[in-house]
């Protein structure tokens, strides 16, 4: 019994790691490649989750829906919707330094939260959307979890291979050139704003896909399903700890941080109730502190961004 419970928990955790790894990959395109600060990850996540939910769920009274499209259409729709939200924001804010984008994305996430809470026709308000079909959801519990883990892993591998390919491709090199020296890249004739917009939209689409995977896994999505600030922050610490600019680092960071986060939750849930509530906030404090420590002592993360040539050895020689 214990062993089965443990195995089930591991499956559950594996699926969540896969979803967060997708979000971290998306953020890596934005921050790691292009140096764009997105503080509204949860907003794009929610747009993806709700879009896919509306497209694939059976009809219900009082809200838009009943399209009952296959899940892959919903997932594609989630990516498109998140990209469409990202486009105007990027268009307006990417002309300036990334500070402005940070503020604007906080705003976007806030507006999306308001829309989800109050537009009952779209999102069914606080009750949320239920009965979202899950691929292989008719199988017995364990098999169905296993099948979903396989799907998430497959999506993650495809996303990883595509992003990794771009990292070494001319596009990826150009993005890093823009990130590291905007002026020089501009002098080489690169269209900096347009390229940044591309990176921002691609990243947002991956975040939307992550949201869709989450909604289909839970079979439902409500406004309370995720805490926007916590989700956004977790993805950030995953990427920074794992190594921004390194796709393997993003996935490694997602694994490490999610294991720490969910195991510490189990540990604190054993405490008596009045301490358990406080312990949640202490965990948040510690995860914030962890970011400060990583930024200070290992800003390149566990797996640093791979550098070409021997710039690294040169650095050491100078020191």
């Amino acid at each position, binding site marked *: 019994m214990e062993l089965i419970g443990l195995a089930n928990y591991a499956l559950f955790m594996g699926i969540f790691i896969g979803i967060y790894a997708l979000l971290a990959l998306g953020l890596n395109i934005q921050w790691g490649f292009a140096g764009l600060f997105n503080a509204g990850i949860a907003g794009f996540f929610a747009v993806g989750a709700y879009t896919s939910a509306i497209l694939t769920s059976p009809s219900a009274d009082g809200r838009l829906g009943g399209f009952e499209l296959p899940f892959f259409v919903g997932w594609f729709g989630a990516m498109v919707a998140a990209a469409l939200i990202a486009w105007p924001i990027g268009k307006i804010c990417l002309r*300036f330094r990334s500070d402005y984008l940070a503020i604007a994305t906080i705003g976007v996430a*806030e*507006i999306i939260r*308001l829309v989800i809470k*109050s537009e009952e026709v779209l999102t069914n308000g606080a009750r949320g959307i239920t009965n979202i079909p899950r691929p292989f959801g008719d199988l017995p519990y364990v098999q169905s979890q296993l099948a979903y883990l396989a799907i998430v892993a497959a999506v993650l591998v495809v996303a990883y291979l595509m992003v990794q390919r771009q990292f070494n491709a001319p596009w990826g090199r150009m993005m890093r050139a823009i990130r590291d020296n905007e002026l020089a890249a501009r002098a080489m004739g690169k269209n900096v704003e347009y390229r940044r917009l591309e990176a921002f939209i691609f990243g947002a689409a991956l975040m939307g896909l992550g949201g869709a995977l989450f909604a289909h896994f839970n079979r439902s999505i409500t406004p309370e399903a995720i805490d926007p600030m916590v989700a956004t*922050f977790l993805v950030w610490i995953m990427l920074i700890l794992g190594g921004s600019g390194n796709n393997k680092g993003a996935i490694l960071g997602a694994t490490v941080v999610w294991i720490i986060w969910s195991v510490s939750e189990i540990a604190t849930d054993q405490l008596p109730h009045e301490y358990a509530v406080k312990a949640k906030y202490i965990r948040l*404090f510690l995860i*914030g502190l962890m*970011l400060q420590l990583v930024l200070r002592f290992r800003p390149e993360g566990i797996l640093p961004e791979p550098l070409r040539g021997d710039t690294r050895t040169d650095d050491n020689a100078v020191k």
Partner: protein
Amino acid sequence: MGFLELINFYVIPGVVLGSIYALGAVGITLVFAILRYAHLAHGDLATLGAFLALAVVTALGLPPLVALPVAMIGTAAVAVGIDKAFYEHLRERPKIVTVMASLGIALMVRSVVQVVWGVDSESYVRGIVRPENYFGLRIKDREIYTVVFMIGLVGVLQLFLVKSKWGKAMRAMSDNPNLALLSGIDNKKVVMLTWIIAGGLCAAAGVFLGINTELKSMMGWHMLLPMFAAAILGGVGRVEGAVLGGLIVGIAEELSVLVLPSEYKAAMAFVILLFMLLVRPTGLLRGKVL
């Protein structure tokens, strides 16, 4: 709807809310202009200030206005401490790294508030305050205090920036940091002074929000967007611009209820922010664009 009703129910609350935003926005605009990054923990510092004042109010039974200086000093000290512990060593790195650190600080400050004071709503004084009637205008005493204190605090700050040696040093750092450093201005002191002022004003914003509404652990985070919108609307680096921006954002939020469902009041600040970035990123009073 009559003219008086428009004033009583929308413009006066807007001015009060706007004064609160203005107090926060002045700090944001100073940090943005002098230290050159967007400080995302500003709202949560305001929450901390409000709860520090609550601690004084409940422990000593003082009125919140008397607790205000204590909260301002306490928050200023915390702000300087945060800078020393977490931001100082990032100064040589790209500024955006500090923005990220400040997002983490926001989370940390908020969780401290949540651990110490819990997540329930609190208020400084119990009971309902009836507004006084001035020639048909219905104004509460605390609304008058809020606006008067805001004008007073910003006035003193403006005098300090224009007249005193250190105020001039701060403005010099904002205008041209390299030239300021070359002419012998002590960067460390300017940074510390900026944080003392920003922290104190943050606490004032939080305390006045608490006096006029209630204290919640998320109150500051929800103020962050309007405060940034106010700072950018007025022009980054312009103290009087931040006040003007704060008042406009506050009044716009209250008036938006006339045309939009009230749930979207908070969206007003965001609309103003995007509109200004699109049309006139320097702000109304020609601030700087980073």
